[in-house]
């Protein structure tokens, strides 16, 4: 069943992000954009997979700020727009988002910011609820896939009612949870209506205008709680003077705990769907009926502060407990059991907890670079090149960036020294060099990350004549988040023709001192190129270009595979120690084996086997 085209009233199992995509279609969103980032990517991917033939624009942008500006441009002309990003992406888009709060919008503009408590796949446990405070933009948050869909529609209605962009804040356990969703009516896509010149509203160069717009913003925020009251985003369940205030997936854990505790009455559960502006009217009424409050929320004590502040304002004698009282952790995601424990303490109850067995020790299995990954060759080539040029490994810092290639940090390759934020490799390498570091520095950055935030730093390094080797890992796709398009593609996912950009032309145009394109599968050439360029003054760029092996295998099939001749294997393990390829393993006979189904045929292991024990097998 096509989740985007299913008729209203259909009940289907959808992942939170699929539900958001459906919600966007129901709301008549015409422009959908964003930058891939776990756990937000599947919203646009769902539209790409199921949206063919729908009259909508759904395309990835170079980075989150460009994506937001595209969505904003559409919304000031009256179209409905959605922009998606993971939490750090909100930081990238922060500048235009804050200004947009002053100009406002005419068409609905929904900003999906996906937080990642845990963190499961993100560099920090950023709590983006503070982002609403900072930008003064309304923020709502769903607890499950059904709400994720419904809230997109509500967010659009709110956005057009108060003329402000609205932030839909989610967390991984909503984005990546599958649950039943009942579909609603689909509105036709809302496209461009009109855009009239209005400098006080759209030009931020006038300081008087800016003060006026700030006052306007506060006035608009004052309408939010009232407008939303008809949608029931904030709810009270149960009764009693002991109150649990919660939001997001925390609500689901609270309900789970109540059912485990067998409690139907005696506790009031207060679920907040509106996070900003804080629903003071609703909460004042609730708080007046509470003697004690437990706040269940992930990450920072955001609601807790708000509730404590409100209780102070209202001069209420109510005990509010949460993170400050150490009932719940600030670090890591909540689990049903941490919430159950907090609820037990709060309600002075004892309940039999689940008992299992002690954990068994198991060898760790962090995600490695895939079999045949071209990045493996690039990093091995880089390291051997550094050694061949006469340096020791510890003399040459390798700055990393965000993408699959960060997995090169693990043994046996142990390549990158840093992985910080999108595009940071080049600027950080530059800073170390400028601070007096005498040896060579290397910045390694992926193709999509280069376009995302690497180009300004590269321009800076070239302009300031800082000596460094820049290794651009061009696998021709945004691999880590699930194979999205880059600016070098000639077509978008929905098939619209685009102009493919050339990385070498861009870098040459900036004035890089050397630009060489190397096929990383030709590892000897990788090594010799690094050896030649590592000592050369100037900004020297190697573009290591080969398609993501997984993507290529999916598109074109696997051309060849390798196997081990056991009699020839002398158990030296050179293949494993050099490549760390997950298709290789040591069997119970102590010899190396290749899991044929996982091998994608790069042959790097065979190249480094001193005994010719690894040989190609024909297809099939």
């Amino acid at each position: 069943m096509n989740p985007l085209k299913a008729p209203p009233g259909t009940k289907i199992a959808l992942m939170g992000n699929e539900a958001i995509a459906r919600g966007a279609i129901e709301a008549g969103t015409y422009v959908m954009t964003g930058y891939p980032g776990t756990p937000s990517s599947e919203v646009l991917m769902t539209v790409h997979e199921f949206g063919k033939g729908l009259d909508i624009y759904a395309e990835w942008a170079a980075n989150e700020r460009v994506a937001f500006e595209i969505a904003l441009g559409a919304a000031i002309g009256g179209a409905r727009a959605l922009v998606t990003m993971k939490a750090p992406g909100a930081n990238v888009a922060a500048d235009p988002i804050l200004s947009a709060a002053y100009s406002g919008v005419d068409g609905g503009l929904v900003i999906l910011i996906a937080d990642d408590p845990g963190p499961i796949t993100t560099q920090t446990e950023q709590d983006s609820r503070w982002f609403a405070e900072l930008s003064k933009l309304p923020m709502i948050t769903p607890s499950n896939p059904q709400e994720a869909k419904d809230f997109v529609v509500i967010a659009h209605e709110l956005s057009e009612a108060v003329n402000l962009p609205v932030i839909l804040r989610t967390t991984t356990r909503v984005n990546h949870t599958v649950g039943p969703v009942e579909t609603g009516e689909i509105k036709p896509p809302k496209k461009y209506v009109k855009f009239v010149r209005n400098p006080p509203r759209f030009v931020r160069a006038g300081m008087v205008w800016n003060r006026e717009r700030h006052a306007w913003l506060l006035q608009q925020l004052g309408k939010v709680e009232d407008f939303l009251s008809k949608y029931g985003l904030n709810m009270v369940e149960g009764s009693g003077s002991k109150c649990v205030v919660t939001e997001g997936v925390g609500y689901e854990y609270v309900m789970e705990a109540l059912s485990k505790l067998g409690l139907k009455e005696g506790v009031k559960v207060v679920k907040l769907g509106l996070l900003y502006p804080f629903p003071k009217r609703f909460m004042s009424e609730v708080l007046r009926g509470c003697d004690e409050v437990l706040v269940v929320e992930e990450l920072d004590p955001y609601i807790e502060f708000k509730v404590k502040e409100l209780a102070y304002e209202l001069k209420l004698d109510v005990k509010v407990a949460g993170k400050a009282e150490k009932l719940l952790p600030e670090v890591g995601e909540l689990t049903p059991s941490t919430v159950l424990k907090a609820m037990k303490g709060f309600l002075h109850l004892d309940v039999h907890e689940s008992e299992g067995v002690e954990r068994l020790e198991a060898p760790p299995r962090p995600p490695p670079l895939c079999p045949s990954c071209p990045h493996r060759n690039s990093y091995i080539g880089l390291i051997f090149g550094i050694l061949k040029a006469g340096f020791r490994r510890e003399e040459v810092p390798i700055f990393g960036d965000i993408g699959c290639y960060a997995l090169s940090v693990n043994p046996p390759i142990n390549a990158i020294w840093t992985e910080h934020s999108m595009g940071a490799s080049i600027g950080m390498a530059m800073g170390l060099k400028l601070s007096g570091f005498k040896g060579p520095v290397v910045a390694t950055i992926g193709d999509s990350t280069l376009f995302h935030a690497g180009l300004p730093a590269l321009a800076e390094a070239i302009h300031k004549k800082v000596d460094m080797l820049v290794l651009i890992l061009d696998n021709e796709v945004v691999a880590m988040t699930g194979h999205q398009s880059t600016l070098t593609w000639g077509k978008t996912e929905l098939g619209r023709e685009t102009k493919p950009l050339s990385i070498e032309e861009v870098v040459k145009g900036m004035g890089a001192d050397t630009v060489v394109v190397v096929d990383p599968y030709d590892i000897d050439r990788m090594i010799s190129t690094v050896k030649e360029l590592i000592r050369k003054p100037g900004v020297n760029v190697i573009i290591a270009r080969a398609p993501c092996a997984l993507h290529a295998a999916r598109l074109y099939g696997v051309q060849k595979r390798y196997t081990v001749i056991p009699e020839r294997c002398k158990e030296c393990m050179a293949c494993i120690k050099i490549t760390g390829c997950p298709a290789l393993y040591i069997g119970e006979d102590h010899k190396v084996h290749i899991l044929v189904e996982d091998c994608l045929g790069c042959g790097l292991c065979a190249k480094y086997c001193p005994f010719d024990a690894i040989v190609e097998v024909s297809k099939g």
Partner: protein
Amino acid sequence: MKNMNILIASVGGQGGLTLSRVIALAAVGDGKSVRTGETLGMAQRFGSVVSYVRVGDEIHSPVFDPGDADVILGLELIEVSRNVHYLRRGGKIYTADEVKPPISSSLGIAENPKKSDLISRVSSKVKEIGGELYVIPAREIAVKAGNYRAMNMVLLGAFNASYSLLTDESVRKAIYQLLPGRKGDISVNAYMQGKSLNLKDYRKK
């Protein structure tokens, strides 16, 4: 019905996510409530992957805690051993007879456990809490059904034969929704083969 918690333990790329999705789709097809909690993203390839699947009349949380799994479906034995503490008292494990040593084992950084050791370790833990362990030659059966990739469906069949959680019709529909055409044929075939196994033969005591 009582809520059922299923933990799927696998290595990224083995089909653990497809399995959890098939169960979710089939459960909704049967009119049940369902929630799953997943670890997604290409970057999980060849890493440890756990999926939580919860089916019942009223489900809230997408995940559950150690000691709360009624069933563990394992696609790989190291991953089963890593997650055995999720099993509740009297719970059951259906696992493929499959070992994929991680790089840490091959590099000698971590232990490289033998298959027989893994099975006996898991088995002794399961015994402690009065559970049951079934080690199924899922690869062999999947290959007979048409492709080793259908191991996940063999396990689903074996599990559903014991628990009758899902109707065959809903499983079939769910499989074809996710895997149209020949892949679907193979998966349905693998599911039916798993369902018709004589499970007693695979019980480890």
